[in-house]
């Protein structure tokens, strides 16, 4: 799966499952500051990504994800490692 395909599916999860505002989503969008995702929402986000892509995202890796682009990169690297 290339990065673009990952991005498409990931954005779909953010909008349809987590109810985030599609218009505000881009690579630079900061989950907490731009998309209004709180601490509970971060956990929901990680669980949704784990389910969608069948990957494991340990807490120490999750801590580095601040933006949509970083989430796409992390999932992309996991799927291709």
């Amino acid at each position, binding site marked *: 799966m290339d990065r673009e395909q990952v991005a498409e599916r990931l954005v779909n999860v953010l909008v349809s499952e987590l*109810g985030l505002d599609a218009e505000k989503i881009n690579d630079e969008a900061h989950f907490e500051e731009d998309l209004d995702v709180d601490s509970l929402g971060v956990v*929901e986000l990680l669980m949704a990504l784990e389910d969608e892509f069948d990957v494991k995202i340990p807490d120490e890796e999750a801590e580095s994800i601040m933006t949509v682009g970083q989430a796409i990169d992390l999932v992309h690297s996991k799927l291709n490692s």
Partner: protein
Amino acid sequence: MSDRRRVVVTGMGAITPVGLDVTATWKSVTSGVSGVGPITLFDAGDYRTQIAAEVSDWDPSAHFDAKELRRLDRFSEFFIVAARQAIAHAGLEFTTDEDLASRAGVMVGAGFGGMGAFIEEITTLVERGPDRVSPTGVPRIIPNMAAGLVSIEHNLTGPVSCVVTACSASANAIGDAAEIIRRGAADVMVAGGAEASITTFGIATFAQARAMSTRNDDPQGASRPFDADRDGFVMGEGGGVLILESLEHARARGAEIYAEVTGYGMSADAYHITLPKPGGTGAAKAMKAALEDARLDPSDIGYINAHGTSTPANDSTETAAIKIAMGDAAYGIPVSSTKSMTGHILGGAGAVEAIIAIEAMRHGVLPPTINYTTPDPECDLDYVPNEAREAEMRHVMSNSFGFGGHNATLIFSAL
């Protein structure tokens, strides 16, 4: 009485199986419309009881966005929307008035809270393991969250709390909220309750307790309070909210006043976990306490909205209790159970029925007990059988009793 503040009702909101607001609900309960039907919220094919009074036209997406809905149980949706209706009905706007909002609070009553969310999360835990359980499990499940959410939405920073006394919960919430205003701790309280327990576990456990009707082939005839052939309650769902306000606060802002909260009585049976105390002395004690609180005589009461669940034990015991509390006046007081139409909204019942009692007084119309066809010798009062009728009333009473032996009685009066 002279040194305590008077409390009035200045707004009402309701989501019930027979209407998505107070006006529609009132129209249904005075027309004898039943909200009972086959359960559609889950597949009840294997259940003893397969009927309930669902809020069938409920569309949460009309009230909440997708992100909000992920964090709400159905019971909170009912409470929040009923609260919005009541606040708008009262003509109050809290978010632009910090002083008003700081003197306002919320009191919610619920029997369970987010039972649907609880079932979902426990199922996930068992089937998929602990790291698949949602981080929003707790906020969706805890019953006080409905009050917390209303406080957050409207910026209410006064007393915000929750009563969990089974089927008397929202009557207690209204009574307790009135007490908060009486003692001066708030000027306005958003008070009521909600329930949404038409769920797998909710239906299964009440059915196992043999508390619910199994008249599955006749849903609309299943809730038949005080009738000799009653065989248990029919579960309803929904919510009701009243805006309570100190009389001086309501008058100062020129608010329309729908009723005064004049009496609140509570008692306990101290008898059994689910059964009412035989003879009705426990429930009678709450009714007497409410009359005393209101400084009224039994003959002043023009209507009683009964707890009237349609269980064999409740209806005969409540009848006995009314006769103890009201004495000779009992036979002259119309008593009806609107649960015959709404089903039993459990923790939300007290609030919905308080609203119906107030509407009865305002409109001068007694809502009927439908499905009343065969008199029970143990239930020999005037139950306003099957048809609404007109009556003048200055004071109305609403009873609510709950598992655990809780008894709560409210009295509302015309101002």
